[in-house]
């Protein structure tokens, strides 16, 4: 057995540098250990957020620290069936890890040793407490007093003499403790024993279960700290995918990486298991198709399948009940019914009230449902859970053929993937309205920021410096309310969920002047509309009516409608909104407002990716299309294209870049350009990531001025594509998993 050095891996499964996304939480646990203030830390985990490796990393850090803090880690597993056997296993683990720490021998933690081995390996200075402990354990073990035995085992860390150090125990998977058979409820017992021990400790598990246990144990919450463990944020999850893929030698594209993060909602558990499945099958994940095929394999028989199947088997050990449970849950989830009757569920499940309550409790703990007494909502589970449930339902209840289920699930997943990414990109691209209104706080801002027509008349086309200066000197100011609550519109009108995108349409409750009286109470209903050009009367009216109706339905006494659109509103739309005293702003006005009130935009540029040698990468905007045009001019000159042709190529590239910038909601805000020179032609490929425009490849240019004014949005889009097709010899749009790829060829003519 080798001695520990500063970076020994003891319990961790991945090296520290490969452990991504939980740095803050790791620091918090280690600080908690080092503080030794006798407080407990409850680590409240969202299902499948993963906390085991976090605790093991904390363990290794403390082990390598070799201070007077003695780290002890114990994970409850499904293999233990009773509270007594789990407690005995805990005692064994404590002694084994104590010895490993004292002897600085990491391998001892993993060695298969017995209590007799412990006695033999213990330093002589420790025998004086370990020997009596083992003897007492053997006496109590055969006393038939299970409660005494459990308490004795759990109390083992307290028997470590102060001169040897202070034990710091971390319990993992504590939700399993309550499922153990026997006369002792272990989860609550843990909290009782450690809550009174005066030692610092961590108990980690599913958030709903841990809090329930703490209440059942009548814990003193003043002595408990809480640490919530959510799913990873996007950038952390991207990093996790990259690290796991590299470690597992799984080749995957950026598009698949991003899809995995969204599809699994940043869950480290699912992401890691999925990539391990790819490694096991030696699969490369280059396309959405590669990804979804493996996903469906996983749903039907892989890690994901086993994870959910095991949970269901615990909740409903008998097959008949399990099948009924799958039926009831899937039908409730599919119907989108948010408040089904609990009694109705019980009748359909055909179980006794006590057993039913236990099942419902477990479903609630796993967050497959939200159970609030008389009603149950099965629409809340993760997408992966719902996919598993649907597959299980089709196979077990509908008895569909496996081939059909596989084929249709792959097809459905593939159809869903671009929408998943589109939704994500739109959300990333949007301005966070919640944050904006949350910063209002009774500040005074120029009224012109809420009236697009006035703004357009005075400021459109104005030089930026002059604009900032004039905005600063605006005398007509409005005082914003203090906002006290913001929620999505569909939280107020669940019947119209599809009409509202969560973050683009919000209801903000507040008070004028920050005075909390009925007279000062106000509600702002805000929608950020999607439109490439000025919003017309029809769209403005439909949104005004929708929000106005929402306000009336909810009996808001004083309210204000505020519509926002990228390019503002045309005159009739502006007139209508003004008539109803509604506010309307362009994105530019909103940006200025944000500057004025000091809010921060949610939109963050993605990190720069490395371009390969054939690629020229240009950031979107800032007239950077001119850089692309300039580059192609140099290349075309080498091919001796005549000046007119060069100008045509340049114009086509400018249009392609504008098209990519305008339509893609690109996550990295970059345009990728490939120039290929051949003997008789120049081939230019312009691509960007993001969303494929629905009309891509269409050729509906409107040439007459009258026609164009009738359909302004199509006009501009149509003009760009029309120009490209006219100026280049061959133009081809290629559909890729996400984004657009436009290939343009210009032939060199000798004439």
């Amino acid at each position: 057995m080798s001695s520990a050095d500063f970076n020994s891996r003891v319990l961790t499964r991945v090296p520290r540098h490969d452990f991504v996304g939980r740095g803050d939480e790791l620091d918090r646990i280690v600080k908690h250990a080092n503080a030794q203030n006798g407080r407990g830390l409850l680590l409240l985990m969202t299902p499948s957020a993963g906390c085991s490796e976090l605790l093991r990393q904390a363990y290794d850090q403390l082990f390598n620290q070799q201070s007077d803090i003695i780290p002890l880690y114990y994970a409850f597993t499904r293999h233990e069936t009773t509270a007594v056997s789990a407690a005995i296993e805990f005692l064994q683990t404590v002694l084994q890890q104590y010895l490993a720490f004292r002897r600085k021998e990491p391998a001892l933690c993993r060695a298969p040793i017995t209590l007799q081995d412990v006695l033999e390996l213990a330093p002589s200075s420790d025998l004086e407490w370990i020997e009596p402990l083992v003897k007492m354990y053997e006496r109590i073990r055969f006393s038939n007093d299970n409660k005494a035995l459990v308490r004795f085992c759990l109390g083992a860390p307290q028997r470590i003499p102060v001169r040897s150090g202070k034990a710091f125990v971390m319990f993992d998977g504590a939700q399993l403790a309550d499922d153990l058979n026997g006369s002792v409820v272990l989860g609550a017992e843990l909290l009782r024993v450690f809550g009174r021990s005066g030692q610092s400790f961590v108990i980690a598990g599913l958030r709903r279960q841990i809090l329930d246990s703490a209440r059942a144990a009548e814990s003193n919450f003043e002595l408990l700290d809480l640490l919530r463990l959510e799913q990873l944020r996007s950038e952390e999850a991207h990093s996790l995918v990259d690290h796991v893929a590299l470690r597992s030698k799984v080749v995957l594209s950026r598009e698949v990486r991003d899809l995995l993060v969204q599809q699994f909602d940043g869950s480290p558990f699912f992401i890691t298991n999925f990539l391990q499945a790819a490694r096991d099958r030696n699969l490369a994940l280059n396309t959405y198709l590669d990804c979804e095929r493996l996903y469906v394999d996983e749903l039907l028989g892989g890690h994901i399948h086993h994870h959910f199947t095991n949970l269901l088997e615990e909740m409903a050990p008998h097959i008949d009940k399990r099948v009924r449970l799958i039926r009831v849950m899937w039908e409730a989830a599919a119907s989108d019914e948010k408040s089904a009757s609990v009694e109705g569920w019980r009748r359909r499940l055909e179980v006794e009230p006590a057993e039913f309550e236990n099942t419902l409790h477990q479903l609630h703990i796993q967050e497959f449902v939200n159970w609030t007494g008389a009603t149950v909502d099965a629409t809340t589970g993760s997408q992966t859970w719902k996919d598993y449930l649907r597959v299980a339902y089709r196979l077990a209840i509908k008895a569909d053929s496996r081939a059909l289920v596989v084929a249709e699930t792959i097809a459905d997943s593939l159809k869903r993937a671009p929408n998943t990414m589109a939704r994500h990109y739109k959300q990333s691209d949007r301005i966070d309205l919640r944050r904006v209104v949350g910063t209002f706080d009774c500040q005074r801002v120029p009224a012109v920021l809420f009236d697009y027509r006035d703004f357009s008349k005075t400021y459109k086309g104005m030089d930026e410096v002059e604009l900032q200066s004039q905005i600063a000197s605006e005398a007509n100011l409005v005082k914003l309310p203090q906002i006290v609550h913001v929620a999505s519109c569909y939280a107020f009108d669940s019947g119209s969920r599809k009409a509202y995108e969560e973050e683009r349409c919000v209801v903000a409750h507040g008070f004028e002047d920050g005075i909390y009286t009925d007279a000062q109470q106000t509600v702002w209903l805000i929608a950020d509309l999607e439109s490439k050009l000025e919003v017309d009367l029809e769209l403005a009216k439909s949104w005004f009516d929708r929000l106005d109706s929402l306000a009336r339905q909810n009996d808001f006494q004083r309210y204000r409608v505020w519509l926002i659109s990228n390019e503002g509103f045309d005159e009739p739309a502006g007139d209508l909104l003004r008539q109803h005293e509604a506010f309307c702003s362009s994105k530019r006005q909103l940006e200025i407002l944000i500057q004025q009130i000091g809010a921060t935009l949610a939109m963050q540029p993605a990190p720069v990716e490395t371009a390969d040698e054939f690629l020229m990468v240009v950031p979107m905007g800032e007239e950077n299309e001119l850089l692309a045009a300039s580059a192609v001019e140099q290349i075309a000159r080498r091919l001796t294209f005549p000046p007119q042709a060069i100008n045509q190529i340049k114009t086509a590239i400018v249009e392609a870049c504008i098209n990519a910038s305008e339509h893609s909601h690109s996550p990295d805000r970059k345009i990728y350009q490939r120039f290929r020179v051949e003997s008789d032609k120049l081939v230019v490929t312009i691509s960007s990531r993001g969303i494929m425009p629905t009309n891509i490849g269409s050729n509906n240019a409107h040439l007459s001025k009258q026609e164009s004014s009738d359909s302004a949005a199509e006009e501009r889009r149509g003009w760009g594509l029309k120009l490209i097709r006219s100026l280049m010899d061959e133009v081809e749009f290629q559909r890729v998993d996400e984004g657009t790829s436009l290939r343009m060829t210009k032939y060199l003519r000798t004439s």
Partner: protein
Amino acid sequence: MDISTGATVKSHCVGTTAIVYASDYLNKLTGEQIERECRRQLDSGCRALVIDFADTQLVNSIGISILLGIIDIAEKSGAQVVFSDVNNQTIQLFDMLGLTRHVALAKNEQEALSTLSGFNPTLTLH
């Protein structure tokens, strides 16, 4: 001759005709600047607009759509519009998008003024 020294778009007036100079790249930003200047000139009483493209090397479709808007605005104000000194490549683009059906083209600023003078006998040149 009334010379405007606007921060971004050069222009000057010859009688009731405003001559507005487009920059080397006509896009959304510079198009809106031209539109703003044209509106300003019309509001101050100009009855005709000459937009000079002598410096313009490159145009894009958004810039062209804004030009179309300017022609509309001028029409509503009863003003004439002439584009002057447009290079061949840009004329080709204007043709493709039908813009040349709605506006007169002149070889240079002088020809534009003459065209307007011929069209409107009351126009006075200084």
